């Protein structure tokens, strides 16, 4: 990597920052009501919102992480692509339309509809902040690492500077532009990411004369692993003991871990607060459905392209060259771009590398803005307005608090990300999905579809955070070579054998929702009548928006 591409990359990224800042400031002038901060005025089209959802959803973990995982481990990386896409059917069939019809600004709106406001809103805000901050942290630590890889920084101070810069930009996007500004940033980012991935995919396919079998064969040969195209290189491995015999118990746990991950991937999406609040940016449930259709089209096309990006990188760049730069493989897509442009030291290679590097920054920046928006909305609308002020805050006061909250969340994320530099935080994305799937999703689904569901059920489903609890006792934290606590410290309390808690914590979340409901006498059938009729018909939606 030489000066050429870092200069181009910096220039392109600066251009992206300037364009998005211009768009965000312009968007802020279109804001007419204080509550536009939350829903961008609620007048985006299904197509616009579909692109924005795709922009919010396809994080650097998708673009760089999946391409890298496929490049290093072959088939198993593709499992992520599939889970992340199929997950959208839960949102489409069960969540998007009823949520749009019965809430206004936050996930808490729907959860607290027929419940006691204070406990449920507090739970909703807590969960929103926890899920969003975990996710945020993974993205920001990733941003620091990515920039140093692409720009050749080795000084940790430079990484920290990048994190602070990303944090300040996301705070500006959110506080100035609110939901409207952030939505435009997501749309621009989605367009850039899709275009970049499409160009690279076409170049890879042209290289292999559109023969996918040939591409896979070349990837397998370059990997030197005869089983590269088969599942089981990373997840659900067959584990052998020292004598070379199959360890049946460990192998079973390894396979259960794969199932557990799969469960969190497909049930987590429809419980991610920053995705849920996107459904409020369109006027009707019909538009919410159209947004999801467009999102599925874009996201599906993108994840199909990860096959070409990942196996292309494996075949053309090779795992050895990739891991030399980054052990986790996150540089696979940028390195593939450099190769496709003509290779290291060529102008074409430098340009392609710079473009893809800039797209990756744009991706990170847009996703962190969406997450910060979701957290600050929930802190202001759920916690401040409905818990602290008991529903008596004016919209102007609420939004002022939301802007302050964006500074607090942004500052917290910057500080945590700097502290977490050097830790392997990739598991935080999977953890955010697991918490969303085991707390938020049960609470949302039971709220919408179960007549008896009540305050205690909602609070129990969300609060137990069983996913976090189990994770602490899993090999992610201690007792394995890859744990956060080094294994040679001798500290090990990994009695929970799976790295992914979903298999246990998701059914547990639903069970606690049921148990909490059954052990409490509170029933609010009258409000459920209103919720159910609203959620299926959209009645009262205009009124709900004016309020």
């Amino acid at each position, binding site marked *: 990597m030489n000066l050429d591409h870092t200069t181009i990359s910096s220039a392109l990224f600066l251009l992206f920052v300037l364009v998005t800042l211009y768009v965000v400031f312009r968007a802020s002038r279109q804001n007419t009501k204080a509550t536009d901060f939350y829903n961008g005025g609620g007048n985006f089209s299904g197509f616009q919102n579909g692109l924005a959802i795709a922009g919010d959803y396809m994080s650097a973990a998708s673009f760089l992480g999946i391409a890298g995982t496929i490049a290093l481990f072959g088939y198993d990386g*593709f499992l992520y692509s599939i889970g992340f896409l199929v997950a959208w059917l839960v949102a489409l069939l069960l969540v998007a339309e009823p949520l749009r019809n019965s809430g206004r600004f936050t996930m808490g709106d729907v959860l607290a509809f027929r419940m006691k406001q204070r406990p449920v809103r507090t739970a909703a805000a807590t969960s929103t902040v926890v899920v969003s901050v975990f996710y945020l942290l993974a993205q920001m630590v990733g941003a620091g690492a990515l920039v140093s890889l692409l720009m050749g920084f080795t000084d940790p101070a430079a990484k920290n500077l990048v994190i602070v810069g990303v944090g300040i930009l996301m705070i500006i996007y959110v506080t100035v532009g609110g939901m409207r500004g952030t939505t435009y940033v997501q749309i621009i980012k989605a367009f850039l990411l899709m275009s970049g991935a499409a160009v690279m995919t076409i170049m890879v396919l042209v290289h292999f004369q559109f023969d996918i079998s040939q591409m896979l064969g070349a990837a397998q040969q370059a990997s030197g692993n005869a089983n590269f195209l088969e599942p089981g290189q990373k997840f659900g491995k067959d584990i052998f003991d020292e004598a070379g015999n199959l360890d049946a118990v460990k192998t079973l746990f390894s396979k259960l871990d794969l199932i557990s991950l799969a469960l969190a991937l497909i049930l987590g999406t429809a419980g991610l607060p920053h995705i849920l609040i996107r459904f409020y940016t369109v006027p009707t449930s019909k538009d919410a459905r159209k947004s999801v259709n467009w999102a*599925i089209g874009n996201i599906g096309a993108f994840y199909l392209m990860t096959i070409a990006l990942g196996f292309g990188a494996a075949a053309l760049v090779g795992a050895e060259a990739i891991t030399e730069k980054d052990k986790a493989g996150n540089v696979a897509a940028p390195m593939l771009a450099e190769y496709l442009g003509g290779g290291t030291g060529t102008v074409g290679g430098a340009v392609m590398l710079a473009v893809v590097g800039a797209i990756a920054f744009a991706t990170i920046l847009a996703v962190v803005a969406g997450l910060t928006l979701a957290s600050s909305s929930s802190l202001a609308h759920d916690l401040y307005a409905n818990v602290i002020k008991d529903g008596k805050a004016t919209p102007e006061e609420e939004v002022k608090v939301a802007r302050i909250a964006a500074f607090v969340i942004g500052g917290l994320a910057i500080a945590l990300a700097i502290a977490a530099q050097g830790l392997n935080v990739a598991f935080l994305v999977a953890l955010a999905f697991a918490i969303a799937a085991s707390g938020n999703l049960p609470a949302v689904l039971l709220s919408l579809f179960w007549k008896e569901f009540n305050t205690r059920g909602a609070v129990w489903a969300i609060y137990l955070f069983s996913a976090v609890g189990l994770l602490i006792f899993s090999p992610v934290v201690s007792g394995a070579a890859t744990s956060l606590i080094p294994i040679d410290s001798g500290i090990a309390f990994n009695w929970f054998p799976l790295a992914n808690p979903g298999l246990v914590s998701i059914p547990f979340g639903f069970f606690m929702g049921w148990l909490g409901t059954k052990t409490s006498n509170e029933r609010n059938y009258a409000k459920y009548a209103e919720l159910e009729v609203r959620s299926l018909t959209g009645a009262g939606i205009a009124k709900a928006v004016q309020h």
Partner: protein
Amino acid sequence: MSDKQHRVWEETQSSPEFAQLRKSFRGFAFPLTAAFLSWYFLYILLTAFARDFVVTPVIGNINIAFILGVLQFVSTFVIMWLYERHSSHVLDSASDKLRDKVEKELAN
């Protein structure tokens, strides 16, 4: 909220039109959800436990695991299309009609 408004919501909820709308939504969305979840976990279980089967090559280097994976994409697109068709043919007009009726009653 007034008692009158409560009555509108409750009467609508227990009306046969609403029961019909709920049935045509749930009767479509719930079984479809069960179907795609089963199909997805069948795929995951096969990749976890039926390795010898899924590694069978079909076309050149493309094995059954790849075909199944791409079929997950195909089924997602098909289900999206099925639901859109059901919604636009059946659900939208029924829910719009009920919405107008409820809003008129609430305004009176």
